[in-house]
């Protein structure tokens, strides 16, 4: 008897899961047996690799094994699978779903990856280098698609993304856009985050995001080991990566801690103050382009910093149950409104640049990033995402996730 396990696959035939459960199916391969069978699904990957949990229904309490009754005629039986919380993969294929029969004989299997955004300081060397190489290819010494990301986060677009209600959703979309392009180059990459309220000396080293010269007269060009994925990094025409910390990199900068950030309040209107601190404070903990809105995205650190800003929102959403877009506690336009009618910051507004609009008050220049890239494993948010599409990112209410998760933010119904 052979059992086929069917899980969404990308063009290369690879499967990925996050903490959010996805529907999968198993069936007896037609012609491989004459009788119905009882099979058990279980983990069979490496001991240190990713692990998954199963359930017969969509839940947050899957188990490491699931028994299925498979009809002899090859009819598929659905089940749900998710990454086991805090057991992410480090490499593709280190998670394996195995189907065994009543004699514990393997009758089918499926390689996959529990692909999760992680604390950058906890990446393996391979994870780190895969991320850096993909980012370097995307940049291609200033001639690659990365320039369009840099051109998105500029002065003329400041009001699309800052100072009003949609600061968190817009940046969530921006990060996901970049992550999907990186995954098109190397599907095993997930965007890491810089947890800026904790020391991260390994992040600011010459084998990761670059080391700042200790001699202040030397300038602020960060130094890389030869052959590093970002050694040839360029944006605009001449700029390398310049960055000088205002803090001892063996310690964390002076920013609000995660607990202090969560203490801003459990309503969206209150929590959104995190745009000033810790978000703004983290940006200005360095000299260099990272400390100004129009130039910050020239530095790849931007994306790790903002992944943490997004993680803080995700954690806040989880701990306070703030994923229902219909609730004003989850999202609110209270406070300053963008003239003339808060466009771009209301739930049903599409977001620039992915909507391609150049009608005022949107930036007049051609939108640098359109359409929003698709994913081979999920079908959200579509080509022109709206503000509301970014909120329930795990699909708690919509049942459709955006295809990413953070290592310390679980899926919970």
């Amino acid at each position, binding site marked *: 008897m052979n059992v086929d396990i069917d899980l969404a696959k990308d063009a290369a035939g690879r499967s990925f899961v996050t903490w959010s459960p996805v529907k999968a199916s198993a069936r007896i391969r037609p012609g491989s047996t004459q009788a119905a069978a009882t099979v058990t699904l279980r983990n069979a990957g490496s001991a240190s690799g990713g692990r998954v949990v199963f359930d017969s229904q969509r839940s947050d309490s899957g188990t490491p094994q699931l028994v299925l009754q498979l009809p002899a005629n090859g009819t598929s039986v659905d089940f749900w699978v998710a990454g086991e*919380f*805090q057991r992410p993969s480090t490499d593709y294929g280190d998670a394996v779903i195995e189907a065994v029969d009543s004699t514990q004989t393997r009758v089918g299997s499926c390689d996959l990856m529990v692909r999760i955004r992680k604390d950058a300081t906890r990446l393996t060397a391979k994870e780190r*280098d*895969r991320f850096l*190489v993909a980012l370097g*290819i*995307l940049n*291609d*010494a200033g*001639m*690659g698609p990365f320039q369009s990301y840099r051109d998105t986060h500029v002065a003329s677009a400041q*009001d699309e993304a800052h*100072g009003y209600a949609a600061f968190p959703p817009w940046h969530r979309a921006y990060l996901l856009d970049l992550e999907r392009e990186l995954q098109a*180059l190397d599907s095993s990459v997930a965007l890491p985050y810089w947890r800026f309220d904790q020391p991260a000396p390994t992040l600011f080293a010459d*084998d990761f995001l670059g080391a700042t010269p200790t*001699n*202040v*007269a*030397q*300038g*602020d060009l960060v130094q890389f080991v*030869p*052959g*590093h*994925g970002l*050694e*040839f990094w*360029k944006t*605009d025409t*001449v*700029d*390398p990566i*310049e960055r000088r910390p*205002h803090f001892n990199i063996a310690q964390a900068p002076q920013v609000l801690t995660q607990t202090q950030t969560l*203490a*801003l*309040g*459990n*309503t969206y*209107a209150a929590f*959104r103050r995190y*745009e*000033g601190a810790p978000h*703004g404070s983290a940006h*200005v*903990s360095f*000299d*260099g*382009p990272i*400390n*100004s809105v129009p*130039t910050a995205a020239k530095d790849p650190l931007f994306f790790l910093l903002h992944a943490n800003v997004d993680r803080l929102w995700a954690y806040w959403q989880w*701990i306070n*149950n703030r994923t229902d877009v219909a609730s*004003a*506690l989850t999202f609110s336009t209270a*406070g*300053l409104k963008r003239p003339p009618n808060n466009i771009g910051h209301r739930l049903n507004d599409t977001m620039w640049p992915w909507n391609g609009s150049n009608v005022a008050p949107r930036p007049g220049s051609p939108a640098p990033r359109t359409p929003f890239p698709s994913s081979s494993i999920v079908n959200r948010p579509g080509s022109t995402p709206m503000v509301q599409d970014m909120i329930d990112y795990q699909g708690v209410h919509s049942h459709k996730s955006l295809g990413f998760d953070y290592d310390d933010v*679980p*899926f919970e119904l």
Partner: protein
Amino acid sequence: MNIKEYRRKAESLLRDAGVAVGDSVALPSAAQVDNAGFGAARPEADVWERALSILEDKRAEPALRTAAIQKLQAGTFLGPQFRPYRARYLRTLREVALNGNSELRRSALDILANAKDEFARRLLTESLEGSIEPVVPTAVALGFLARDDHGTARSIARRVFAQSDSLDAREQAVRILASDASSKGLLEEAMKNKSEFRQVRRASAVALRNLDPLRFALTASLILDDESEFADIKASVAGAISRAGPAPGPAPIAPPPRATLRKQPKRRMR
């Protein structure tokens, strides 16, 4: 992991820290929204007023004035809320760039350079040309000036490269010349020159790759075929070749093991 247990622990930690958690909250009133920082009575406004006063005060402690810059610069990330303070902030930064101590001058010029501020560009240019006392070290000034893609930076960079013996200044100069089509030959020579600082050679490779990929590839192949060439130079050019083009291809070359990279670049005979 049991999610419910994970939640219980997380909530417990937060409640111990006095953080309100969960659903049991009423919708905020208009006054609460104001107090949260998005209405007329913004607490940020008071902070920015105080910070501007400190920054404007030449007698204030430099460390305090540096902290004020950080507070104000963080405010710029709030866009419309900070806008009423922006002109005064930039005006004060220009004064600090002229009169502050070395650290303050550097921070002020860093921010002004990011903003492509004309006053800062002139100050940096005059500093590099020697018509005024240096406001920041040469390498730093070149780096700031390079953020404003201006022909002045390129002509100064060519002069610095021709005249300066400093590794730092030469490296910054080469980076700026990455936008100067007339410097292809200079960059190619620097990339091949075994007597040049190795950091400058690597920077030249980066610049030439940006300026003329074909010429870079030809020079890189010579370097890779040269058995007497330094391992770090080879690693740099090989890495660039492996990452050329956005299309997915064969598995990219990962950075070489650290053990082979730890040799510090040293200057050889020039």
